[in-house]
């Protein structure tokens, strides 16, 4: 028996509370809609619950990771690739890992705050090189929403006038760390564009939030709300309107549909009791993450939609992509015997390298950006792993202790993050036999990189090695071979899954229209990474936020017009 959550009906039910769900709730409650939000995890506000500035030694595990905090026990995000009671499966030969956040705010509690706009080319890749698909919208459609996101949430950066890396309404960027100046110098020598990074960490107070105090621990969540996470920046203000009802520990099972083929609400498992409940709403918005939203649609089967809701043409689950990634780090002799100073800075890099080359001269079609790390970070578990790779060669005793002191902070690393071309071998579907602990059928993943991505990874590896050599450094690892995939990450490990519920003008090759509204069901929308037609060499969050706001405006306008 399915119990009604409340006697009342809502205007909108949102599934998920991350960047997409939070922004949708914020925008729609501002416009007066009565909204209910379902979140599979528990309540969590960084401003109250963060482990900011807790030193490693305050815990017996010294900050080491555990099962539900794979990025360290102080990390904000409760989740990971391995969640108890919530399996997923892989087709034979597939290497793919599915990361999920299980808490209010989802993976906005996890991310690196790298807040990049997609550029004009990123929406029209196919027109440029014939690969993948063009988006049904252009940069100009999204630009006003990027502006609004910049102003509401805050992002620092510098105005550089780079055509495909559009400037935003930036707050001042913090000065680089000294080793980042070294990176800039080497980049200049190698003609690699290197500019101040663009992170959603505020350097000036806005909307009652304090400016950054440079403790370098954004990943733990910020007590003073100086960085962006959905609960403190979007959901808090939405709750203040009195228009938002938040239901946590609510695992969505199915979108329900009426005889007319319209969505009527969502059935969910109350994880506290195990009971199934139902919320009724005039509009349903999925923002559960690209793959989780696809799963929910595929599991929403009815006489009218036997293949799953929104899936009449079998497109749900298709177009799954992740960001490509590979890393190289090295020892920089110029940095030994550091000058003691506080180098924490913001919780992330102060400089980065946006894509700078012309693909016509390369053996892969799309670009990547380079992230920079190193220097004097807070010593914790894993401290200077691989000490045997330094000139001392390892050892023990007084000489080892002195080596640690000498080489501490004398490392610089680079991480490439690039664009994958969508391919027919990367998708998810419902596993025919496996269910999770609530009996909800789970996803089965299919994954295969193409040579485009392998060649791109080789280029990243070569570039990073050149940078380290340019700084007079020694690379810690050997150049990975072709058999080692040139060091390319496995699918899902960069945690930028996009697609699976794609937008497009052709209903036979997309699930949603250009307003992120289902072709099959006009009161169903998706505002997470699902609608993305392609990746870009940019992290997706800023675009998820902008699209969610744009979709929310469309919903509000359609409601006003009586169409929903």
């Amino acid at each position, binding site marked *: 028996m399915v119990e009604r959550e409340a006697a009342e009906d809502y205007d909108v039910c949102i599934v998920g509370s991350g960047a997409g769900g939070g922004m949708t709730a914020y925008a729609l409650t501002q416009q007066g809609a009565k909204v209910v939000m379902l979140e599979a995890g528990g309540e969590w506000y960084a401003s109250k619950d963060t482990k900011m500035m807790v030193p490693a030694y305050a815990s017996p*595990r010294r900050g080491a990771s555990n099962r539900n905090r794979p990025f360290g026990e102080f990390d904000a995000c409760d989740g990971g690739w391995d969640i108890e009671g919530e399996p997923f499966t892989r087709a034979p030969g597939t290497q793919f890992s599915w990361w999920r956040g299980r808490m209010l705010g989802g993976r906005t509690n996890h991310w690196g705050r790298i807040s990049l706009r997609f550029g004009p080319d990123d929406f029209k890749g196919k027109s440029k090189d014939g690969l993948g698909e063009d988006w049904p919208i252009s940069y100009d459609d999204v630009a006003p929403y990027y502006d609004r996101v910049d102003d509401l949430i805050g992002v620092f950066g510098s105005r550089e006038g780079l055509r495909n890396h559009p400037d935003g309404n930036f707050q001042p960027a913090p000065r680089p760390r000294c080793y980042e100046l070294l990176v800039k110098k080497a980049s200049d020598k190698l003609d690699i564009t290197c500019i101040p990074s663009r992170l959603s960490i505020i350097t000036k107070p806005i909307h009652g939030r304090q400016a950054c105090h440079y403790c370098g621990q954004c990943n733990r969540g910020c007590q003073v709300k100086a960085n962006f996470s959905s609960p403190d920046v979007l959901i808090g203000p939405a709750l203040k309107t009195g228009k938002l009802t938040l239901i946590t520990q609510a695992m969505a099972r199915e979108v329900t549909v009426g005889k007319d083929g319209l969505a009527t609400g969502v059935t969910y498992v109350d994880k506290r009791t195990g009971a199934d409940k139902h919320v009724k709403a005039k509009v349903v918005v999925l923002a559960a993450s690209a793959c989780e939203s696809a799963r929910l649609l595929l599991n929403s089967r009815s006489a009218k939609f036997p293949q799953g809701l929104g899936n009449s043409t079998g497109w749900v689950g298709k177009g799954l992509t992740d960001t490509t990634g590979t890393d190289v780090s090295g020892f920089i002799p110029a940095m030994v015997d550091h000058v003691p100073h506080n180098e924490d800075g913001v919780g992330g890099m102060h400089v980065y390298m946006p894509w700078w080359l012309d693909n016509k001269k390369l053996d892969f079609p799309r670009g990547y950006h380079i992230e920079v790390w190193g220097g004097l970070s807070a010593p914790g578990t894993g401290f200077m792993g691989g000490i045997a790779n330094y000139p001392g060669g390892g*050892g023990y005793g007084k000489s080892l202790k002195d080596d640690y002191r000498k080489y501490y902070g004398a490392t610089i690393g680079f991480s490439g993050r690039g664009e994958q071309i969508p391919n027919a071998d990367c998708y998810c579907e419902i596993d025919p036999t496996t269910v999770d602990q609530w009996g909800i059928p789970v996803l089965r993943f299919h994954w295969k990189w193409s040579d485009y991505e392998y060649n791109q990874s080789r280029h990243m590896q070569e570039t990073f090695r050149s940078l380290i050599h340019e700084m007079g450094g020694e690379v810690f690892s050997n150049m990975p071979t072709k058999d080692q995939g040139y060091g390319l990450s496995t699918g899902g490990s960069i945690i930028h899954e996009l697609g699976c519920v794609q937008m497009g003008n052709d209903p036979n090759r997309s699930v949603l229209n250009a307003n992120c509204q289902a072709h099959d069901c006009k009161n169903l929308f998706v505002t997470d990474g699902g609608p993305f037609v392609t990746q870009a060499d940019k992290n997706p969050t800023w675009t998820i936020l902008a699209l969610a706001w744009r979709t929310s405006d469309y919903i509000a306008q359609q409601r006003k017009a009586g169409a929903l």
Partner: protein
Amino acid sequence: MSDINRRDALKALGIVPVAGMLDWSTPSVARATKMVERLHAATDTAAYAPKFYTAHEWKTVRMLADIIIPKDERSGSATDAKAPEFMDFMLAEKDASENSRIQARGGLAWLDTEMRARFSTDFIASTDAQRHQVLDDIAFGKKVKPELRRGAAFFNSFRASVASAFFSSAMGWQDLKYIGNVFNPGWNGCPPEATKKLGVSYEEFDASLAKRRKQ
């Protein structure tokens, strides 16, 4: 909090009050101070009973840890920083993999076996010279003989745990002169001594950006 207390609090947090940080309201500073005080509160000093290691292993671990990171003029030893306690905790806790437990135990057994084969005595009962003879053979990754690679793998992982624990301790932070993990709202890049050492400057950085923007 009065303004005088506020000044003391800022001092305790290591913040030099500067113009432009007016957003640092008194209540937020009070909150931050309280948190830092809580963190600096005394830690438990009672004797530790290992949950994973046996009594013999525990003795071996403590001895080996202090050989790896001994006390010197700048700081204490691995056991002073409770490195063995950290290692025992991590191996005993529920998320520890079965393999990590086997390798930790098996590695210590390998060490005793190697000592007995060479000197007819276990690690604890041997002399400093005997211990150094075996450790010299397994502690320098790139120079290890093939037949001793198992011992080297164990030593490598043991040393990494000892270093993790030692340098993540309050003593380790002090030893490394790590002076972060504080409220530092006046961030203005790195000091001139640090940039000078690397042969870089903010002027050069700004000039390079300006030049590119003009192109």
